[in-house]
């Protein structure tokens, strides 16, 4: 099986399709694709039609003069090309097309964001010999690429590559570290952890898309096994609670609560605070640094807080309503930020906020909002 994403056979498929001799095939493919524009998307029904089409095309290609005398591998390449062509054309209809799927994707991604703030390998009892940052990053990278591709096969390859990286890690550990090969007992926890670290885009929709639209005859064996493992990792994450982990229930709840608060603090507040010199000053925005705050706010906050530069004499009665609502907004944000900071500093499971010098903070938050950073952190 291939281990890369490159797929030159696709070009050879397109070449053959340009050959006048394949006009009949091209016609059926085009009319098949067009036929979808007549009715609303319906994943189960669409999948059945598409799978049936792949089957009938397989027969047509096998009998076609252009493929006369072709090997099984060549026929298979043509079918892969067909799958990629059809599914790319029908992508917007078949991928994450229902509101339900979109909602599910968002829920999973949000939950993973919360888990990322405190989950550690030991919560899943992952032995330390398997905690290999380099391998894990590589595996994460493969999962994160999943939306760079539109065909089911290429998306599936991202999953397969991710799983192979983990497999290699397990095999390596069993050889060099003398760790007894634990099979799935070791594999699944690492995959779950990697999935949480990666927070792959539209996880639910991607899995569903592959399950429904990957040519069924190719969704067997190792590929099916790896896909099942990611489906199972997703399912574990969706149902995850304190009992799923090696963690005190109270600690789990407190960590989730703290994570929710971090995520709830509105973006613009945090962006403003990002520019401040140290995190300590955020916890204590006392009167000692008014000029500093004012200067920074001017840089970043004037759109959100238009009265920062205003003088009392300029205000009119008409401004009261706006001022009051801005005041409430600021107080809400400030309260939730303080509460977050309190949780962060009290919770043992959450790694402390960046404590280093100014440069450190700037480097960590450079180019991202604080929210993003907290999501990315292990």
């Amino acid at each position: 099986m291939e281990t890369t994403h490159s797929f030159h056979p696709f070009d050879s498929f397109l070449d053959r399709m340009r050959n006048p001799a394949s006009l009949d095939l091209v016609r059926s493919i085009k009319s098949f694709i067009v036929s979808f524009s007549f009715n609303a998307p319906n994943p189960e029904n669409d999948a059945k039609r598409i799978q049936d089409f792949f089957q009938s095309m397989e027969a047509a290609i096998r009998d076609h003069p252009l493929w006369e005398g072709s090997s099984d591998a060549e026929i298979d390449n043509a079918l892969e090309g067909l799958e990629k062509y059809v599914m790319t054309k029908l992508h917007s209809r078949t991928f994450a097309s229902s509101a339900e799927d979109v909602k599910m994707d968002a829920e999973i991604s949000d939950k993973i964001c919360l888990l990322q703030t405190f989950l550690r390998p030991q919560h899943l009892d992952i032995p330390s010999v398997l905690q290999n940052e380099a391998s894990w990053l590589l595996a994460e990278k493969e999962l994160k690429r999943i939306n760079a591709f539109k065909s089911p096969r290429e998306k599936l390859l991202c999953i397969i590559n991710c799983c192979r990286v983990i497999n290699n890690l397990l095999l390596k550990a069993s050889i060099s570290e003398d760790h007894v090969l634990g099979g799935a007992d070791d594999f699944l926890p690492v995959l779950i952890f990697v999935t949480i670290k990666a927070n792959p885009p539209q996880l639910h929709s991607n899995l569903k898309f592959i399950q429904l639209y990957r040519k069924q005859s190719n969704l067997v064996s190792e590929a099916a096994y790896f896909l099942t493992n990611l489906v199972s990792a997703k399912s574990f994450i969706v149902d995850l609670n304190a009992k799923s982990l090696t963690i005190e229930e109270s600690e789990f709840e407190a960590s989730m609560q703290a994570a929710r608060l971090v995520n709830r603090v509105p973006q613009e507040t945090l962006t403003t605070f990002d520019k401040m010199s140290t995190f300590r000053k955020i916890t204590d925005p006392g009167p000692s640094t008014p000029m500093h705050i004012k200067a920074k706010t001017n840089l970043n906050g004037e759109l959100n807080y238009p009265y920062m530069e205003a003088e009392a004499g300029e205000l009119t009665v008409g401004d009261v309503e706006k001022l009051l609502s801005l005041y409430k907004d600021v107080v809400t944000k400030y309260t939730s930020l303080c509460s977050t900071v309190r949780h962060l500093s009290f919770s043992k499971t959450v790694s402390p906020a960046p404590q280093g010098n100014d440069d450190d903070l700037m480097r960590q938050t450079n180019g991202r909002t604080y929210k993003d950073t907290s999501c990315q952190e292990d």
Partner: protein
Amino acid sequence: MGCSSSLPDRSSGRSTGLNNADNSEGPDAKNLRVKLVLLGDSGVGKSCIVLRFVRGQFDPTSKVTVGASFLSQTIALQDSTTVKFEIWDTAGQERYAALAPLYYRGAGVAVIVYDITSPESFTKAQYWVKELQKHGSPGIVMALVGNKADLLEKREVAVQDGVDYAEKNGMFFIETSAKTADNINQLFEEIAKRLPRPSPS
């Protein structure tokens, strides 16, 4: 039919598993392909059994492409049929128990493993048997395996308990040792013989 040899080591030609491309062989009467799911508590040695089987005990240097949790191996039976096992390992920890149906869906064979030194693992095995009877594919071939049979002095589950339970539930039973390779090939050959054939030859 005629697969009655009790000397599987001599009778089974072992294929390396390398020459079988994933989709090259369609299922037919002579060449079966079957999905086998492994269930059992973590630490009972599920993956060791499979590794033993796939790597073989006679040639430990044989380089079979193996993953850590998915393995496939083809065996040839005396009646010149071959069976390709696609072996799906499952995580045995309690926290993953609810995920098992995702793995045993569509499996033709379930091998349920316990550790003869651990009564808890035997209880867990019985749980899996019940679960498969309720939710497994109809006609699934089930084998009950007491592993770590080399640890005789630490035995806590009597052979007879395994035999009785398996008989009551219409399963094949065997005790194995992944460590000494005892009965490993027999396990898979027995399973192969019990597979339903598309057309008996």
